């Protein structure tokens, strides 16, 4: 059996392990743009904060691929696909045949229109900061650049109030830098938290010295003789800063398979991680999967899903049988000492048997979103100890939540 | 093929070393597994002078090729070594669940050599071997040993094969006990284990067995099961066990009573399986692994002198040897004697036989009450029998003499006592009076381990069941040969049965499934083998493999010095008539036996004068290597 895995991060790696477990002798080739072995993107903000060293970013050691008997083509991009001929075309002109293909190309950072070319570039980062002073936070190089700038004491502007932006703000604050967080929405974390949680966290950030500006749009980057000098907001005002980090979320990188397999936002896959074309699998941030309620499909760019989906894909590719139980969107983070967890559905429509239950003690906050008698979502701030049991309740079908949150 | 056969695990007790080797493909095709592969290993690992109780005598446990699967009655384990009782070849087979557990641990055959410097037991946990100190359990009976080992290991669901005090004391008919009450009893394998300072072999297996062609194998197994359940004799076997036919055998005048002086007892009802059921001694039926009948018994005595006694059994042979054989008709005493044999780890056939022989000596004045330390060992004295059992196991007083087996005891006591020492090749005869069953007589005489029915069970010659009569007709061409008093065609009958029996043993099936009940035919065994291993084998080929096994076993004895004169029967059966069968044919006269032997050797292609297999015969069976070894030893004509 000849396996080709395009992209090795969380999903690709766990697929690799699953394949090797079931098929120790099959031919496995991995293709990845990075020249070094897989590293953890989730750890980048922790790296910036200094919680992990640069070497600890790597998920596997250099020897890993050789040890697993895997052919690794690093620093090469897969550019084309021929599902009928079962071939993958590489940027350097090589062509790889496959029996089973896993697409784990991940996601790229969203680049806003005002970002100068070469800034938060299309590989999800890159660009020469000395020239533009604008970067994303997607790759190791991005993180190194941000950390260097922060340590040099340059003021940093973070554009985007999502989880990455907030995590970066916290990381920089830990380094002693006072970052500014520019948020387009009226509140931070608007996609992953409810209003009250956002406000609690926003106030906490402010108390800790992070400047938060909500409801502001960036019009352009202000350039001066020494490079970037800040950003110009839509109302014309200028915020000074030497480094602008764009954290406007990510989108699946479907271009390799686009046009060949069914794609919505991400590559549509079944619970077995199969795409619409036989023997092509997808997993991780690029995949769009049924959710746990079986009500729709979702792209979920979170670590546990990626590694689990990778394992499922690998197992099925190697002839085993495994199923992914569905996407349950969730987030956990440490906001400068205050933990925050959210999961599932966060907004309760006014009609249709929805309601929410919330409890607040000081800065400790809990909110459950209930549909019928079933819990389908939760937000926890401060005391998050019950997050796991609540998640389990959601997975079990949502019943029994009263017992879980009993005072 | 490896997935169904398992590996060979070698254990050297002297060096405290264990290693695994895969079983060779061709060995499976030639010798099938179980008893066959055991014979092959023993032949390779021993020479003509191997001391049965020395460290070089390998003790080989072979689970059947099909043990552990759903094939009905497939739970047998064959133990093979050189016998300390006879000094000839020994294969002895036990039921229970131990062999299956070994298979689940990924091991088909366990070969134990050497001798530990102090008592040990082996703990085989899924193929990993540990040598554990057995000094704390040395001396314990089998039941206690089983519980202690399980406690020591910390898992009560494991399987233990153990010896009792009799094995520790090298009693020549000590057995190896599987699952507490299932014995590999005959020929003293327990003494070989004792001589190795090996108290027990505990096994846990959590693995799986996979047939090469699972669906076909499943189908074949289901077919076997249904065929067995349709057998006319099956229900009786299930309900009354082997002892269900005690009364029938007695009426056939084949029931060895009073140390074979008689072949019928006045009232055997108290010794019958029916009695055990009706009087409530039988508490439950017990099955070996994958058995559809459950002929093994469990009895308990809740009242009377022996209240509190509980044991597996008694089987027909036990009821015969401690019952009628010793003139005893006290069921409870027989059960008690059975319990003692089981927990002390002895063969009930030999043990009852040596006691019956002593009774006759006592009656005739060759053994006095003083020799017996005051024990009044009269016919029918049940309590004396029980006491004697204990003394034999612990080698106390005259028990020490009897523990060497009846042949050695007769030599020591002297006089004419050899005449009623009912043994051949040194093994006490099992409870069939062969004077009234000629195929049995021939089978017993040619049995490489001595006079008993577990080399070749020719039950069909009695013509008791329609299936048996049909089988005789198939072998001989006519149903009329289903008559135990006839001498004609006995060689054919014996040879067919011994081939079939060898295949049965090699696959790990119970002999009842193929040679006492007939549901598992050679054709079905060939089908099972083919589906299990993925190697197509025909009915003829598998029977030829059976003959290869039988011939190799014969060759072991030939290499060790056996000649035609060794193929004989006990003196009493060859020279004394039984009062219960006055007809002149009811004796295994030497001339008659000679005639049958001639036919038998010719049929096999063995030399008539020496009984040695000829070079052509060996070559035609693919035993060329064996032929060359024998030729080098000057044992080939």
């Amino acid at each position, binding site marked *: 059996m000849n396996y080709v895995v395009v992209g090795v991060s969380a999903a690709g790696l766990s697929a690799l392990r699953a394949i090797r477990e079931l098929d120790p002798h099959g031919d496995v080739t991995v293709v990845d743009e990075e020249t070094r072995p897989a590293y953890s993107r989730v750890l980048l903000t922790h790296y910036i904060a200094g919680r992990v060293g640069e070497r600890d970013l790597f998920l596997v050691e250099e020897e890993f691929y050789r040890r697993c008997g895997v052919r690794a083509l690093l620093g090469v991009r897969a550019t084309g696909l021929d599902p009928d001929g079962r071939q993958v075309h590489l940027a350097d002109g090589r062509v790889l045949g496959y029996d089973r293909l896993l697409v784990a190309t991940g996601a790229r950072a969203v680049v806003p229109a005002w970002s100068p070319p070469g800034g938060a570039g299309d590989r999800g980062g890159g660009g020469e900061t000395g020239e533009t002073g604008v970067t994303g936070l997607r790759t190791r190089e991005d993180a190194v650049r941000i950390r260097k700038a922060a340590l040099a004491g340059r003021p940093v502007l973070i554009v985007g109030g999502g989880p990455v932006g907030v995590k970066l703000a916290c990381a920089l604050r830990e380094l002693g830098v006072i970052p500014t967080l520019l948020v387009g929405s009226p509140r931070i974390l608007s996609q992953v938290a409810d209003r009250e949680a956002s406000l609690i966290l926003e106030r906490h950030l402010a108390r800790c010295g992070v400047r938060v500006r909500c409801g502001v749009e960036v019009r352009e980057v202000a350039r001066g003789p020494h490079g970037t000098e800040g950003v110009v907001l839509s109302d014309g005002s200028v915020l000074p800063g030497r480094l602008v980090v764009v954290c406007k979320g990510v989108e699946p990188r479907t271009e390799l398979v686009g046009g060949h397999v069914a794609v919505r936002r991400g590559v549509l896959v079944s619970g077995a991680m199969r795409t619409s074309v036989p023997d092509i699998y997808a997993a991780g941030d690029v995949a769009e999967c049924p959710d746990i309620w079986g009500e729709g499909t979702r792209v979920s760019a979170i670590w546990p899903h990626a590694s689990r989906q990778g394992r499922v894909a690998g197992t099925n590719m190697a002839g085993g049988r495994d199923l992914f139980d569905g996407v349950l969107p969730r987030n956990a983070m440490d906001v400068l000492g205050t933990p925050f967890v959210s999961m599932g559905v966060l907004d309760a429509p006014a009609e249709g048997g929805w309601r929410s239950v919330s409890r607040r003690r000081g800065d400790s906050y809990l909110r459950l979103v209930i549909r019928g008698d079933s819990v389908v979502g939760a937000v926890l701030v401060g005391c998050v100890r019950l997050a796991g049991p609540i998640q389990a309740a959601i997975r079990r079908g949502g019943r029994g939540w009263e017992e879980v949150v009993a005072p | 093929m490896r997935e169904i056969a398992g590996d060979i695990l070698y254990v050297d007790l002297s060096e405290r070393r264990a290693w695994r080797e895969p079983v060779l493909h061709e060995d499976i095709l030639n010798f099938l597994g179980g008893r066959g592969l055991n014979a092959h290993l023993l032949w390779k690992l021993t020479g003509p002078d191997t001391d049965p109780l020395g460290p070089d005598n390998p003790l080989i446990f072979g689970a059947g090729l099909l043990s552990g*699967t*759903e094939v009905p009655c497939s739970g047998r384990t064959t133990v093979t070594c050189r016998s300390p009782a006879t000094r000839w070849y020994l294969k002895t087979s036990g039921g229970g669940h131990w062999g299956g557990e070994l298979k689940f641990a990924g091991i088909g055959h366990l070969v134990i050599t050497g001798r530990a410097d102090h008592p040990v037991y082996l703990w085989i946990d899924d193929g990993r071997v540990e040598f554990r100190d057995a000094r704390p359990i040395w001396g314990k009976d089998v039941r206690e040993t089983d519980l202690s080992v399980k406690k020591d290991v910390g898992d009560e669901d494991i399987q233990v094969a153990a010896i009792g005090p009799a094995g520790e004391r090298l009693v020549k008919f000590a057995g190896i006990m599987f699952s*507490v009450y299932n014995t590999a009893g005959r020929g003293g394998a327990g003494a070989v284990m004792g001589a190795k300072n090996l108290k027990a072999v505990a096994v846990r297996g959590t693995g799986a067995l996979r047939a090469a062609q699972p669906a076909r194998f499943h189908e074949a197994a289901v077919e076997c099961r249904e065929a067995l359940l349709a057998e006319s004799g099956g229900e009786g076997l299930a309900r009354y066990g082997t002892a269900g036919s005690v009364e029938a055998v007695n009426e056939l005048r084949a029931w060895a009573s009073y140390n074979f002086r008689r072949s019928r007892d006045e009232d055997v009802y108290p010794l019958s399986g029916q009695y055990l059921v009706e009087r409530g001694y039988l508490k439950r039926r017990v099955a070996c692994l994958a058995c559809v009948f459950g002929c093994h018994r469990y009895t308990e005595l809740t009242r009377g002198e022996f209240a509190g006694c509980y044991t597996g059994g008694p089987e027909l042979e036990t009821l015969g040897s401690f019952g009628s054989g010793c003139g005893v008709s006290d069921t409870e005493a027989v059960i008690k004697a059975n319990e003692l044999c089981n927990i002390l780890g002895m063969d009930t056939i030999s043990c009852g036989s040596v006691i019956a022989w002593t009774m006759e000596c006592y009656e005739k004045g060759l053994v006095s009450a003083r020799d017996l330390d005051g024990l009044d060992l009269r016919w029918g004295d049940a309590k004396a029998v029980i006491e004697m059992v204990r003394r034999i196991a612990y080698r106390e007083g005259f028990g020490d003499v009897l523990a060497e087996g009846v042949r050695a005891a007769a030599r020591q006591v002297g006089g004419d006592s050899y005449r009623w020492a009912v043994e051949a090749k040194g093994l006490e005869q099992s409870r069939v009076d062969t004077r009234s069953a000629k195929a049995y007589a021939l089978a017993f005489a040619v049995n490489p381990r001595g006079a008993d029915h577990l080399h070749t069970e020719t039950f069909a010659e009695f013509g008791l069941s329609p299936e048996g009569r049909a089988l005789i007709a198939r072998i001989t061409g006519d149903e009329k040969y289903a008559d135990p008093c006839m001498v004609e065609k006995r060689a054919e009958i014996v040879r067919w049965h011994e081939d079939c029996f060898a295949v049965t043993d090699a696959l790990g099936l119970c002999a009842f499934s193929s040679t006492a009940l007939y549901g598992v035919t050679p054709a079905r065994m060939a089908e099972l083998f083919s589906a299990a291993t993925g190697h197509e084998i025909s009915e003829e080929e598998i029977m030829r493999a059976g003959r290869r096994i039988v011939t190799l076993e014969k060759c072991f004895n030939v290499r060790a010095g056996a000649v035609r004169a060794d193929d004989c029967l006990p003196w009493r059966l060859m020279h004394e008539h039984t009062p219960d069968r006055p007809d002149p044919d009811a004796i295994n006269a030497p001339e008659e036996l000679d005639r049958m032997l001639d036919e038998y050797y010719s049929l096999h292609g063995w030399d008539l004068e020496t009984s040695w297999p000829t070079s052509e015969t060996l070559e035609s069976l693919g035993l060329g290597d064996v032929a060359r070894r024998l030729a080098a030893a000057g044992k080939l004509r």
Partner: protein
Amino acid sequence: MEKFLVVYPDLCTGCRLCEAACSYRHEGVYSPSLSRVRVVKFEDRCLSVPVVCNYCEQPPCEASCPTGAMSAAPDGRYALVREDRCIGCKECVNVCPLGAVRMHPRTGVAVRCDLCRGDPECVKVCTAGALRYEPLEAAVREKRRARAASLNPV
């Protein structure tokens, strides 16, 4: 009529064919450690008792399962283990009062009896009649008759 898997421990001879049949049906191999029904042996007393899922009215294994992996089939006729959800926490194993739930030694997920989806193999091979798949009324009738016979021996 609603059928039950009824165990008559008295009749079990301990042949363990049920284990072989079960592991073959579910895993295609013969292995007691993969069998949903297990025969517990007390060998010194030659006693064997088949232990299999009791199909409790309020199954503790299902109640204790944090992920909903232990669940009934959609029509409620037999039990299931949803392997994609099982995290191997062994709660079910620990709470089962019969020891009838176990862990799959290879995949690390819980296994329990699914009645072969309504056609139990173990029953088919049990020649001793210790495992039967019958309406509860049949079991009760037999029990009643046995009791009556013991009161007034015929």
